[in-house]
């Protein structure tokens, strides 16, 4: 009867699957919230991790899923992962729950690598112990199709644009082609909130939280709403700018380097890369740091520490940059034979950091589990002011209340470019 054959078949498959599951248990498990997209994970496994001395199982996941999984490992008392990789915010969440062990010994061992001191300080997550080692870094910039270049406003230097000039550029393109060809990653998985936290607001107000409802902030949002009139409405579906650039849906786009590199690599002759625009208070930009931490009760802490050493050595750092577009945190000089796409990306990034008016805005820190709500404040403000055309003043006043509540509850001190001090950051 049908049931019997199903039973037999499933029994056979079960046996087969169990048999095909040899001693993977001895592998070092490296859980990661970064490099989750399929292509990046594949490169991690087949290229970057290839030369490590022992087998590593790389398990990337979306950060929320990864955090849930790690928490469940703790609560179920069955720790599986030894090494964890994630951005600063996720590692902060882990640290807050005591899941990371101090790795000052690793920091000392690797001191000669020349990690940027700023990054090492971030890796302490506000304590006096090293909780993560900075693994790789990235930032955001803009890419334009060369077809758009003729429409640049007169006298504008593409490597030193202002937001005003960007708007004029977008308008010129729209007038000439009849289409809106500026793009921002405002899709469900897009990184739009980083644009507000690291680029728009610092450029206009010199701060993020403390100046949230200032007159400068109102100006920022209002002018961005005007800029949005030149932005393609498909932006609210864009998660990866490179796709829209390659399909010519967008001629001028902003996104994270990893989500732009594809376009630059595939058709380097068609695109130019340049730093994001500046506002009245400077050229805000946000460095993104991904770190490595060793988990408490890890099955293989020694292996995890060795892997940290491997991933932060010069050669691996360079391969990582080449393969996935995340750049070194150690003092490693990039070789001259980089692909043209990567060269453009590097130039844009260096141009951003080295600009005279550059204004680094750190990743939100110390928010712990409130990070998500914090991001929501900016996305909601965007929806209200830019998409629904509500008056900026009222929206900011309301959202400022929410923001203050979050900062107070998280007891998070201000981070640069807001004035750094003790106690929860205040919205003026």
């Amino acid at each position, binding site marked *: 009867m049908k049931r019997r054959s199903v039973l037999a078949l499933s029994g056979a498959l079960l046996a087969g*699957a169990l048999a095909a599951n040899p001693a993977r248990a001895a592998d070092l498990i490296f859980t990661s919230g970064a490099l989750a997209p*399929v292509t990046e994970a*594949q490169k991690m496994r087949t290229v970057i991790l290839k030369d490590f001395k022992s087998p590593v199982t790389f398990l990337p996941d979306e950060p929320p899923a990864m955090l849930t999984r790690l*928490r*469940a490992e703790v609560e179920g008392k069955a720790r599986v992962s030894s090494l964890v990789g994630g951005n600063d915010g996720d590692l902060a969440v882990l640290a807050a729950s005591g899941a990371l062990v101090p790795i000052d010994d690793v920091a000392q061992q690797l001191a000669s690598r020349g990690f940027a001191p700023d990054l090492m300080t971030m890796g302490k997550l506000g304590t006096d112990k090293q909780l993560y080692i900075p693994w790789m870094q990235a930032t955001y910039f803009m890419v334009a199709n060369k077809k758009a270049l003729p429409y640049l406003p007169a006298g504008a230097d593409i490597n030193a644009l202002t937001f005003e000039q960007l708007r004029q550029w977008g308008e010129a393109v729209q007038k000439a082609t009849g289409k809106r060809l500026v793009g921002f990653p405002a899709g469900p998985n897009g990184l739009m909130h980083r644009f507000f936290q690291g680029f728009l607001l610092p450029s206009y107000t010199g701060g993020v939280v403390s100046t949230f409802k200032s007159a400068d902030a109102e100006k920022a949002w209002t002018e961005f709403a005007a800029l949005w009139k030149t932005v393609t409405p498909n932006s609210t579906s864009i998660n*990866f700018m490179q796709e829209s650039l390659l399909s010519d849906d967008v001629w001028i786009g902003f996104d994270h380097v990893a989500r732009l590199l594809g376009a630059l690599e595939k058709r380097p002759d068609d695109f130019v890369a340049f730093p994001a625009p500046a506002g009245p208070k400077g050229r805000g930009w946000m460095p993104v740091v991904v770190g490595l931490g060793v988990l408490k009760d890890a099955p293989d802490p020694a292996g995890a520490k060795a892997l940290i050493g491997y991933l932060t050595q010069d050669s691996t750092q360079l391969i990582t940059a080449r393969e996935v577009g995340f750049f070194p945190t150690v003092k490693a000089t990039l070789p001259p034979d980089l692909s043209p796409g990567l060269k453009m990306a590097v130039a844009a990034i260096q141009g951003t950091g080295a600009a005279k008016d550059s204004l680094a805005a750190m990743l939100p820190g110390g928010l712990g589990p409130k990070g998500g709500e914090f991001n929501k404040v900016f996305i909601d403000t965007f929806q209200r002011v830019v998409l629904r055309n509500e008056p900026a003043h009222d929206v900011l006043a309301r959202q400022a209340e929410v923001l203050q509540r979050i900062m107070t509850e998280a007891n998070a001190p201000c981070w640069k470019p807001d004035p750094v001090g003790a106690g929860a950051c205040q919205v003026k």
Partner: protein
Amino acid sequence: MTGKRALYLTGVAVICAWVLVPLWLLAANALGGQPVISAWPKPLIPSAFSFETMLEFLAIEGVFRAMLIGFEVALLCTFFSVLLGLPAGYALARYSFRGANAFRLMVLLTRAFPVGILALPLTVGFIRLGLYDTPLGIALMHTALALPFAVLVSASLFQAIPRELEEAAWVFGCSPLQAALRVVMPLALPGVSAVAIFAFVISWNEVFAASVLSARNRTLTAYLLAMLSESPLTYQFAGALLLIVPSVLFIYLVRKRLFAMWGIASR
């Protein structure tokens, strides 16, 4: 052929096209790769046909193994759903007992609550039960999800089978169990096939529970869909195609069972 019959057959053909054409177009996108996706205007027959994207996709580590695990989980789920669902459906159909409606509602609660929200307590519970990251564990969870179908569909089927048939069998000396097995089950077989199909497909396509409850032994769907949301459109379409083919094949294989007893049922 009469005009009416021709109209009717046209209607059938149109519905078939309605189903098949979008699938064809998805396949065209998956097999055509980036050039087709960015093309404007899109021709109905793509100019470029390459298996490159699909092969790249299949070469991704673990994809094939994930397919095997997915099959295993789906078959287990089918087995358990039928095993647990049929008797329960029979009880609901044949007996009016206190708590029948409560049971129905309870069974539906499992479907009415988005399972992904249960991620943390579920994972912790599974780790404690030793079922975390095992095909069996995922299959059990999928069975919980497929049970409402199994119970309700089999209940409605048993309800439609005249009670008199069983009663007649009792008169002829069959025990209730024999009557149920020999008389009712054959008539219910098409419905059992429907239940089996649902259970298999639900399990195969289920993503949240499977992602949450596994780390290394993932089903294909969990493996792909979790990654696909951050992958370029080419991979999304390729992955979609890869997901579609096995369940379509499975339904094809069991389609005969759907009408195996047509002759008897129409008496």
